[in-house]
């Protein structure tokens, strides 16, 4: 009886320690409120990279009467020269816990050449209360369940930056779930070692991470979609190479302000 009780107590303590370590591991160690990253988006046209948009990623603190959250904002604007042909004004936002990067609210407000697409997800445990508008259709509300630890695209990017990548071995894989377009998609991150690349900080050693979606045509093959993250405390994504069914391109970091370290 005593042994059983001791075992249970030991397990409980172990669980608490693990939980403490896990939450500590996920606290925002690599970025802080005020951080602003700017990227130049290019699309590969017959082997020539053509620049077409600027992508900005900003972190800010937002306070309500009871809590404070991190506001992770991602905007995409086409360059002036493209605005007359195809104007993009996209906004993606996530409101997350400043400690665990757990998302509470996700918003998407896209305007692509006049085509409007809006989405709002309110996370409620293992379900999402969603509201969406597509084109001229009115507001549609729908609730759906999600597996545990499912995140939207914005909070996933920042979550990746907080993973203990330095401890990973080449070939290590981490599976996770992403919710996008009201569907949960299984994705995998594959650590592909380190590589030194030219960045705005000079030649930098970077972690090379392959991103792939399972059972999905969008992001196939771990070597086709790669994120290069600086192998330092800031873990800044300096280069993102993507290969989607309609072509390939890249996002290159052009400006970085208010980095944590």
């Amino acid at each position, binding site marked *: 009886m005593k042994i059983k009780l001791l075992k249970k107590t030991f397990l409980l303590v172990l669980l608490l320690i693990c939980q403490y370590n896990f939450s500590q591991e996920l606290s925002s160690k690599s970025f802080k409120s005020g951080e602003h990253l700017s990227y130049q988006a290019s699309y590969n046209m017959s082997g020539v990279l053509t620049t077409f948009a600027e992508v900005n990623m900003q972190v800010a603190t937002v306070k309500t009467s009871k809590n404070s959250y991190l506001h992770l904002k991602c905007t995409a604007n086409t360059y002036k*020269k493209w605005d007359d042909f195809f104007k993009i004004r996209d906004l993606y936002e996530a409101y997350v816990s400043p400690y665990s990067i757990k998302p509470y609210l996700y918003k998407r407000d896209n305007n692509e050449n006049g085509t409007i697409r809006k989405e709002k997800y309110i996370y409620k445990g293992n379900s999402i209360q969603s509201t969406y508008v597509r084109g001229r259709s009115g507001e549609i509300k729908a609730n759906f369940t999600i597996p545990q630890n499912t995140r939207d695209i914005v909070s996933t990017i920042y979550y990746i930056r907080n993973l203990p990548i330095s401890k990973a071995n080449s070939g290590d894989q981490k599976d996770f779930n992403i919710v996008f377009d009201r569907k949960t998609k299984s994705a995998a991150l594959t650590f592909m070692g380190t590589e030194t690349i030219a960045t705005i900080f000079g030649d930098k050693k970077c972690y090379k991470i392959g991103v792939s979606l399972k059972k999905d045509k969008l992001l196939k093959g771990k070597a086709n979609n790669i994120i290069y993250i600086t192998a330092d405390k800031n873990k800044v994504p300096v280069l993102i190479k993507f290969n989607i069914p309609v072509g390939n391109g890249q996002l290159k970091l052009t400006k970085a302000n208010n980095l944590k370290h």
Partner: protein
Amino acid sequence: MKLLTSIIAILGIIITIAFTIFPIGNLTMFPAIITVLCGVILYKIYKKEGGNTTFPKLIIGLAVLGALISSGRALLTSDKIAEDIKFEHRQEKSNQEAIDDLEELE
């Protein structure tokens, strides 16, 4: 040979003009170079036959002009985004609505 080169040259000049209109920079060079090459071949053929060389000259001229406009624009215009007050307002409004949603959630 003459017909095939003429077709390639016409297609090349159409693509060159289209690429000159769109801001895709140095990519215009590819169809422009092909068009110029076809233009030169056509010029030699026409000259050999003793025909009118206006068509190949026009093709070469347009291709060179398209390439010059595109590369000039790529050099002179920088990648800048336009100031968009409407988009900024959308962002502010979205943030305010999000705070209200978070308050409700609490």
